[in-house]
């Protein structure tokens, strides 16, 4: 309060010189930017650009090395089939990571849901369609529990979903008694469970319904995230929950709805999983949580929340798919795939940190 006693006049002397000061301070236009800064700004405003560029480059690289063996409609669609599950689970993971959370339980929820779809049909004789609905419901319920613990109890998402992962996975083994339902039984009695494994051909290209649902889901979520108020709130909550709350967003309700939706999408992935592997197996999809986080991170979505595009996640999943299949076709040791994916993850996070400096 030192200045208040000396400055007795309401008019502020020291500000009078402002009239002569330079007026172009507020200009922040682009002419004097270096190419690198322009790139940084471009990447800041289009977060899916980096993974898209990497995807195109890796397609070209493998295409040059492997030629027609790689660049065939069959191989391209095979990659799509292989990333369908990760893509769907990755969509769920994207929603949670955009809120600055993380969901380690996605894979476990997926498997439990698929087991429930199978066991309800074969153990209790439910109509398969009803079992599917039950499976989706259980997935959503798991997500709802995660969301409630995170939003109402204010527990860290990492811990909540770490616990949930173990609980759901153990329930899955206990409930299913570690029993696999064979593919022949499913196709004979409950073919709807394998719906997402069915395919159609366009020339040499083979599309499963699992691929179609993955692409449709990502497009739908892109629309929701970018064109609806709910989607804007997802970003606002991840960016600065306190600010979002003061601006009138019900943060608690948002978090619960996001985790619930994430659980529901995981259950959908569980249904698609039955189509992919044919049978219902409680030991399937063990690495879905890590794979989905990998896709999200390589897709340029910030783990600190509020930044990134779901399209980036899809590109990230495809990059992993391209590397796995490309390296396998080259006949290399599969460990090379993991090594390169590991490198990509670290590079992706480094780029994310660099892009964020635009704000500084």
């Amino acid at each position, binding site marked *: 309060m030192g200045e208040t006693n000396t400055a*007795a006049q309401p008019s502020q002397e020291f500000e009078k010189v402002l009239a002569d000061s330079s007026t172009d301070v507020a200009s922040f236009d682009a002419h004097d930017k270096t190419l690198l800064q322009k790139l940084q700004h471009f990447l*800041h*405003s289009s977060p899916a650009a980096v993974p898209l560029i990497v995807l195109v480059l890796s397609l070209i690289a493998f295409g040059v090395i492997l030629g027609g063996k790689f660049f065939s409609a069959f191989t391209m669609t095979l990659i799509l089939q292989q990333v369908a599950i990760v893509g769907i689970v990755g969509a769920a993971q994207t929603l949670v990571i955009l809120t600055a959370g993380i969901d380690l339980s996605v894979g476990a929820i997926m498997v439990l849901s698929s087991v429930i779809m199978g066991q309800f049909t074969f153990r209790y004789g439910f109509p398969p369609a009803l079992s599917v609905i039950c499976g989706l419901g259980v997935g959503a319920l798991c997500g709802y529990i995660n969301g409630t613990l995170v939003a109402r109890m204010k527990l860290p998402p990492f811990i909540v979903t770490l616990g949930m992962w173990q609980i759901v996975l153990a329930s899955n083994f206990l409930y299913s008694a570690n029993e696999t339902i064979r593919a022949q039984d499913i196709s004979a009695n409950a073919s709807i469970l394998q719906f997402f494994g069915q395919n159609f051909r366009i020339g040499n290209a083979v599309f499963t319904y699992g691929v179609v649902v993955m692409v449709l889901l990502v497009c739908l979520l892109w629309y929701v995230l970018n064109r609806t108020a709910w989607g804007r709130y997802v970003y606002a909550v991840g*960016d*600065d929950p306190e600010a979002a709350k003061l*601006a*009138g967003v019900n943060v608690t309700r948002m978090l619960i709805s996001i985790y619930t939706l994430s659980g529901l999408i995981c259950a959908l992935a569980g249904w698609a999983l039955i189509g992919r592997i044919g049978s219902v197996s409680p030991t399937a999809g063990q690495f879905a949580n890590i794979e989905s986080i990998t896709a999200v991170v390589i897709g340029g979505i910030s783990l600190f929340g509020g930044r990134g595009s779901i399209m980036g996640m899809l590109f990230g999943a495809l990059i992993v798919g391209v590397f796995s299949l490309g390296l396998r076709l080259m006949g290399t040791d599969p460990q090379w795939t993991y090594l390169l994916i590991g490198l990509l993850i670290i590079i992706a996070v480094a780029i994310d940190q660099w892009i964020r400096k635009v704000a500084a």
Partner: protein
Amino acid sequence: MAQEPILTARGLVKRYGRVTALDRADFDLYPGEILAVIGDNGAGKSSMIKAISGAVTPDEGEIRLEGKPIQFRSPMEARQAGIETVYQNLALSPALSIADNMFLGREIRKPGIMGKWFRSLDRAAMEKQARAKLSELGLMTIQNINQAVETLSGGQRQGVAVARAAAFGSKVVIMDEPTAALGVKESRRVLELILDVRRRGLPIVLISHNMPHVFEVADRIHIHRLGRRLCVINPKDYTMSDAVAFMTGAKEPPREAIAA
């Protein structure tokens, strides 16, 4: 001041455990004025402002807006009643665009099926209104309404927050320390914004520690001390030293100021 006050509070009490933050505090805001609220740290001015803006619910007392008793359970309800607050931390989402931020929590949806069934936002309409509001307040140095708020300077961010409040506040605008984090030039800009908002007929409650700013723009100064309103003074009749003396208890305020 023959007019009726637009916003009044009588006998507000708020206790936090054993601390009494508000002790039968009164408050009056008249139409079209800038009322500065000053007080020492811990005097309870922020508790009073929070009670008025819906962030806390007082234990006792009555708040009236245009003569009607009101009770807010959340800042949302205060906003719906026409009371907008510019928080000290601005409550902006850095990664969202200027337009998105201005309409956060009250988005405009497209007309027809797209808006009703697909809940599609009317981006064009929101951008147009946001741009109109910003130019109305002379903030059009901001060229791109779609740029993220985090790419703006401190003064520009403050401008966006003030524009948001001015755009939606139909009755009262409350500003909590709007110049505290700003440089000389940016403070000047924000003070001009405050005067612009008043010119458009909205009364403003300005909470500030900056005496020169308070004495420059305020029509009346509400001095808060020990959880209640000590007095209201006219900045033309008193010096800053007087105000600080009243605020800290170094000097007794004159009788007529207490009655006001």
